[in-house]
């Protein structure tokens, strides 16, 4: 059950997990596992959700972050800029088990932002003259040719924040910000996993990166449950 106060969005993780289902389009913030929400990803694994379309910068590492969803074969399609750090993604792609749409990283970020801020697309010249332009409409503006890049949204977007207030205002930790503020805007339902949840009003409005209006639910993080690649 939701809390009585509509501006108190903190829920038990069980309630958040009710919104994950087979075949859904899931967008995940993070970069190489940094900024992936560990407890929500574990919840998806434990709930046996499968046939996901994953929109994420990358597929992380085999046992880190969203990489685990690929390793456990819960993903049928991925839109990402890079899968190289997760050999399972490459192997599944080669075997025809995982469909991969590659998108240049900055363009992926802008497509997610476009979806998140209600734009119909963006124009960019990145990838012109390469296979990245295939299938994209060309638009000429002021004599210059651009590719029309379409917006991306998702049924559920999950993000990892350092600190959230109960309203969903978010602050991120260092480079774990990366795709998270963009992904937070692009979910039809946005679920935040926060390391720390504080009372509304405790965050300095000047420091808030994501305004709570984009956030639907907040769950308490149990913290990272993997070893980083550099931890040897």
């Amino acid at each position, binding site marked *: 059950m939701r809390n009585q106060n509509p501006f108190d969005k903190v829920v038990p993780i069980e309630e958040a997990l009710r919104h994950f289902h087979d075949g859904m389009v899931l967008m995940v913030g993070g*970069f*190489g*596992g*940094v*900024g992936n929400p560990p407890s929500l990803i574990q919840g998806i694994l434990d709930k046996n959700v499968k046939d996901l379309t994953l929109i994420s*910068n*990358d597929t992380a*590492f085999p046992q880190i972050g969203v990489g685990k969803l690929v390793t456990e074969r819960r993903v049928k399609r991925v839109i*990402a*800029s*890079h*899968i*190289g*750090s997760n050999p399972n993604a*490459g192997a599944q*792609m*080669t075997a025809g088990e995982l469909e*991969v749409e*590659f998108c*240049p*990283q*900055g*363009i992926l*970020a*802008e497509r997610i*932002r476009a979806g998140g801020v209600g734009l119909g697309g963006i124009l*960019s*010249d*990145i*990838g012109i*003259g*390469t*296979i*990245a332009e295939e299938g994209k409409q060309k638009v000429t503006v002021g004599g210059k040719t651009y590719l029309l890049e379409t917006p991306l949204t998702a049924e559920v977007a999950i993000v990892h924040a350092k600190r959230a207030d109960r309203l969903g205002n978010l602050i*991120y*930790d*260092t*480079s*774990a*910000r*990366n*795709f*998270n*503020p*963009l992904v937070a805007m692009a979910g039809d339902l946005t679920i935040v996993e926060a390391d720390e949840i504080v009372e509304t009003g405790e965050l300095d409005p000047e420091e808030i*990166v994501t305004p709570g209006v984009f956030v639907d639910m907040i769950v308490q993080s149990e913290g*990272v449950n993997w070893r*980083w*690649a*550099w931890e040897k």
Partner: protein
Amino acid sequence: MGMGEVKQAESYRERIARRAAQEIADGMIINLGIGIPTLVADYIPKEKHVLFHAENGILGTGPSPAPGEENPNLCNAGGFPVTLVRGASFFDSTTAFGIIRRGKLDMTILGALEVSERGDIANWIVPGKRVPGMGGAMELAQKAKKVMVLTTHLDKNGRSKIVRECSLPLTAKACANLIITDMAVMQVRSDGLYLLEVMHPYTVGDVIGATEAELKLDGEVGVYR
């Protein structure tokens, strides 16, 4: 860097990185790719003011932290923990790439699978074999003011990676300015690829013989040791 091995005589990777560092001017904003490019930071004189850009959302990365001092969230784009220099800032991925596309990045230093004599770079896909994805390489190669490629001269099968025409899918067209390999330093100009220096002990003949692309000469070829 090490990985535990005993410090040997300078490797070809280190020499490439040392040569590359000479190209870095005071005040530059620089993005270093994974592999040999990462080593370049070790060879930049301390008195030079440079800021390193990491496309995962940092301007102003510093050296690796001491063991035990890592913040797992504070990493470079290769996923390794970093520190910050004074004046560093964090931002989301759209701003990270806005910096690149807007022309604020003075130099990007990349690896490559192939580079053509016109400066086309292929470095993100070997169809059917290795398909890591382009990551941020397309933006970096296409939009950095200066693009420096650091690579071995030959691939694992002994074939020239410096070619007339790339056979692999491109990262970006006509973008490379300078190519530094274990054999040579080459510059892409509007009228072709010029051999500027050979890496000791290779001769001009060795380099031309090992290079599929046409190498032009403009005066004396230097020797880098």
